[in-house]
């Protein structure tokens, strides 16, 4: 039996196509994934992300515990700041990518992928055992709704008041909405501006309705996981299970910037220090010739030699052509040509830099 988010009845009433995703019953599209994708690029889209894990770390040593558990330097983050980071194992392999929000001096919120939430929570408990910090998995206690797109700010501010407009990218604040205190973060996974709103689970449907009402004139539409995937792919953002895995280090996936030497070290720190000196893989973008999309797992070849593998691929609604992210074992030549084995047919692809799409505003 799949887990259901607090918005489950809303999705059913909208006639969403539901699928099992990481053990959750989630909307994959409502009507057309392509239309939903364009709505986020041109107007605004509303996402139910309540399946993502909300893990709270509190106490005097909360920051120090996260410094040890993750790649991030959490203890030096100002209150109200958000940062993208990763949790690695002792070998430097990626357990998950996540966002850390500093809500207060002694309170952090870690948002992890749905598929990895239980693992990340168990690891956080284990890794913080020698610190004065408490861990709480509040995934079921929260509804997480995201509004993303060029119209997102206008729509969300209608509910929260204008002060939230001052909130900058990768910041988080407490806001009053629907008579309760919520967390509003200016973060997302689409390549567009937007907000992620964390409210008590029971208020999820009311917040959804209020946002839809506030955004109806601006073309706000519900968006499912299929469009979320093509949006993040165009924005060059990695997905755990595709680009990221236990077999990859941050260096293999273009995330060397996340690895910083820390005084107290961190789990996997020694392995990563060694990996920094070793050859590693590279993530690149591919423009695929022809009409057939490349899929995760397809081989990439150059002059007959296997040089890598496609990690994600789809038709790009914004670009109007097939795109893919691939992991290559050598420094890629941007503008060069490689071949992708699309189920037995060698198909030419041009190597391009990530991301495929940057918002123009």
């Amino acid at each position, binding site marked *: 039996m799949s887990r259901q988010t607090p918005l489950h009845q809303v999705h059913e009433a909208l006639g969403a*196509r539901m699928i099992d995703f990481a053990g959750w019953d989630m909307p*994959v*599209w409502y009507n*057309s994934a*392509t239309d939903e994708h364009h709505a986020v690029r041109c107007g605004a889209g509303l996402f139910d992300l309540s399946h993502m894990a909300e893990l709270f770390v509190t106490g005097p040593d909360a920051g120090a515990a996260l410094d040890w558990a993750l790649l991030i330097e959490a203890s030096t983050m100002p209150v109200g700041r958000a940062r993208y980071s990763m949790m690695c194992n002792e070998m430097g392999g990626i357990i998950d990518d996540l966002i850390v929000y500093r809500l207060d001096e002694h309170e952090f919120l870690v948002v992890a992928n749905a598929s990895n939430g239980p693992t990340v929570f168990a690891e956080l408990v284990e890794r913080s055992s020698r610190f004065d910090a408490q861990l709480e998995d509040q995934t079921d206690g929260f509804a997480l709704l995201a509004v993303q797109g060029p119209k997102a700010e206008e729509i969300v501010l209608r509910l929260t008041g204008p002060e939230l407009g001052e909130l900058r990218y990768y910041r988080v604040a407490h806001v009053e909405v629907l008579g309760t205190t919520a967390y509003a973060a200016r973060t997302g996974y689409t390549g567009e501006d937007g907000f992620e709103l964390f409210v008590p689970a029971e208020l999820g449907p009311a917040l959804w309705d209020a946002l839809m009402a506030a955004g109806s004139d601006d073309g706000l539409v519900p968006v499912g996981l*299929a469009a979320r995937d*093509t949006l993040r792919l165009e924005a060059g953002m990695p997905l755990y299970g595709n680009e990221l895995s236990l077999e990859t280090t941050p260096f293999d996936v273009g995330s060397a910037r996340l690895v910083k030497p820390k005084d107290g070290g961190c789990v996997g720190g020694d392995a990563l220090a060694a990996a920094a000196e070793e050859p590693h893989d590279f993530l690149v973008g591919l423009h695929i010739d022809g009409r*057939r999309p490349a*899929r995760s797992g397809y081989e990439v070849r150059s002059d007959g030699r296997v040089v890598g593998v496609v990690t994600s691929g789809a*038709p790009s609604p914004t670009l109007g052509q097939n795109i893919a992210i691939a992991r290559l074992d050598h420094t890629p030549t941007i503008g060069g040509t490689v071949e992708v084995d699309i189920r037995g047919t060698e198909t030419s692809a041009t190597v391009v830099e990530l991301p495929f799409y940057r918002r123009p505003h």
Partner: protein
Amino acid sequence: MSEIPEQLSYTAEHEWMAHGDVTTVGITAFAVEELGEIVFVELPAVGDTVTAGTPCGEIESTKAVSEIYAPMNGEILEVNDALESSPETLGEDPYGEGWLFKMKTDEGEYALLDAAGYQALIES
């Protein structure tokens, strides 16, 4: 509720057939809805000999690749080339403009369904 025309016969792999001098084959509205937006269709070649229940082409949506199975034994007489340049037609009109191929069928025992049988299959 997906449209299931009475006069057609069906396979468990969600193909429909219109029998006449030749047999026209397509995929059902139910299958099209399951697939989502279709981006690529690969059809058999005219003159190919196909075997019931074995793959003879593929349909690719934004999310996944699915095989097209030959519904009966026989020879491919004509294919819907228009789907190559506009695969979305398949989603818009699966029982009309979105037909896949026409074939000459051999005599034999085939596990085909009528509309009621197909309806029962997709509801099960």
